[in-house]
């Protein structure tokens, strides 16, 4: 019988929630890496027992760990004890921006809050995206915004510097949460295609495996930047894609819910009847490519649900017409947020939808959003939620 494994990153550790296909009884494992901020936990789609976790600490920096047994044990790739005297240590958890001459790019500065140019400084890994085809290949989206790739299961990391070296790089600037590359989307039908998104630069696409990149922000309108239709500078919060339609993208921007039908070349607004189109998460039903989910948040100044009622909104028409889903969700006095990487779907016949809150709840719906139940209520603030559907 199928099982579901929900991978939860929180401010104080990681948790693994497992259930059978009914998804009504859950086992909770954790905290793993207790006390560490866990920005993201994600499993390889082709080796489901291989999990990666990004743990970050102001004291000790960035650690990426890997499990090869579904989270029972963890190790630091490249951090194994040396076989003997004289053996060369590997570069465990080393993320170094590419400044090589071969790149030919001025990869030295970006725009800072005060408008001056500022050196790129590695801070943390926001998002880990394992390859869809190679169990040893994995991407990391980092702050300050850049994309790294490992081809040895996380032992060493190398920047895909064509992104940061894009001619617009010196114009990129951090949002309030830092300048993070938070979204990485791979296309199973075209291994050369990668989508990424950066706050606050916008969305980019590569069609050559990450060597060169193109901003894909036409149609976005952001009134908080000097030129609201600029090529870059938009605060994209998250992007989602259904694997069967890799040309169709859905975006939750700072404000505005957007859709592209041409791989990001053009975007149109699909906020429709949403009560507010500010928010962070967006995701697509596993079997219905036109069914989209968002969690509206009141505003950029008030990061909590409207009127204290936590609601998911679902569109079955690819946007514009949205229905409120609240069965089982708090009706009042709820002032949590749902962060950008904290929603996911499973691929069981009846699609399950999951999201986590900054109040420490992880909600699950086993019927595509019609009914919700909290799996856990009192975790630390949830930073990320991912789901694995296990055979």
């Amino acid at each position, binding site marked *: 019988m199928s099982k579901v494994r929900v991978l939860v990153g929180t401010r104080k550790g990681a948790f693994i929630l497992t259930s059978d296909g009914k998804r009504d009884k859950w086992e909770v494992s954790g905290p793993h*890496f207790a*006390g*560490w901020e866990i920005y993201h936990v994600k499993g390889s789609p082709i080796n489901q027992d291989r999990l990666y976790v990004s743990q970050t*600490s*102001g*004291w*000790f*920096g*960035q*650690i990426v760990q890997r499990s090869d047994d579904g989270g029972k044990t963890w*190790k*630091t790739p*490249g*951090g*194994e*004890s*040396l076989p003997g005297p004289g053996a060369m*240590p*590997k*570069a*465990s*958890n*080393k993320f*170094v921006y590419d400044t090589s001459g071969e790149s030919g790019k001025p990869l030295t500065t970006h725009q800072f809050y005060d408008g001056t140019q500022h050196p790129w400084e590695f801070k943390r890994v926001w998002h880990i995206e394992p390859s869809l085809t190679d169990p040893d290949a994995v991407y990391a989206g980092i702050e300050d915004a850049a994309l790294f790739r490992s081809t040895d299961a996380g032992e060493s990391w190398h920047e895909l510097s064509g992104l940061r070296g894009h001619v617009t790089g010196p114009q990129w600037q951090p949002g309030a949460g830092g300048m993070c590359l938070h979204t990485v989307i791979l296309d199973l039908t075209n291994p050369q295609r990668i989508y990424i998104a950066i706050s606050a630069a916008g969305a980019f696409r590569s069609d050559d495996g990450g060597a060169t990149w193109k901003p894909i922000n036409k149609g976005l309108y952001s009134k908080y930047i000097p030129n609201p239709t600029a090529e870059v500078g938009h605060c994209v919060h998250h992007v989602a894609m259904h694997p069967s339609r890799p040309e169709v993208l859905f975006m939750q921007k700072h404000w505005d819910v957007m859709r592209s039908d041409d791989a990001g070349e053009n975007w149109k607004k699909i906020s429709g009847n949403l009560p507010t189109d500010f928010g962070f998460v967006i995701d697509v039903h596993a079997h219905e490519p036109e069914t989209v989910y968002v969690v509206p948040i009141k505003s950029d100044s008030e990061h909590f649900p409207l009127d204290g009622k936590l609601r998911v909104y679902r569109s079955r028409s690819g946007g514009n017409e949205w229905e409120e889903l609240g069965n089982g969700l708090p009706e009042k006095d709820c002032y949590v947020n749902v962060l950008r990487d904290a929603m996911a779907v499973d691929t069981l016949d009846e699609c399950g939808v999951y999201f986590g809150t900054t109040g420490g709840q992880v909600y699950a719906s086993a019927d595509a959003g019609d009914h919700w139940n909290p799996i856990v209520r009192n975790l630390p603030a949830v930073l990320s939620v991912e789901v694995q559907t296990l055979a």
Partner: protein
Amino acid sequence: MTDPVNEAPRVPSSSIRVMLPYHLRNLAQVGDEITLQVAAPATVRSVLDALEARYPMLQGTIRDHDTLQRRPFLRYFACEQDLSHEPADAPLPDVVAAGKEPLLIIGAIAGG
């Protein structure tokens, strides 16, 4: 002095006791205190070199990967002294070099 087997010069070494913060003990999967053999004279730099060679997963967690500068929220203490701002190549206190007192690597106290 030579090694009787390979006749290479034998380098005097010290057994240095090191105490790590809780999270790094967990990361390295070690107990409260570890002992490292370090060539004399032992210094903060030579102790950390030995520590990272034995526990490579600690690279980058105490000092920067490249610059080897101490991470801002960590401190080096020994014998009730803060050695954090001493030169990394300064000899450690005799009692630390003799293994009588540990070198403490401390995380700054913070709430939340």
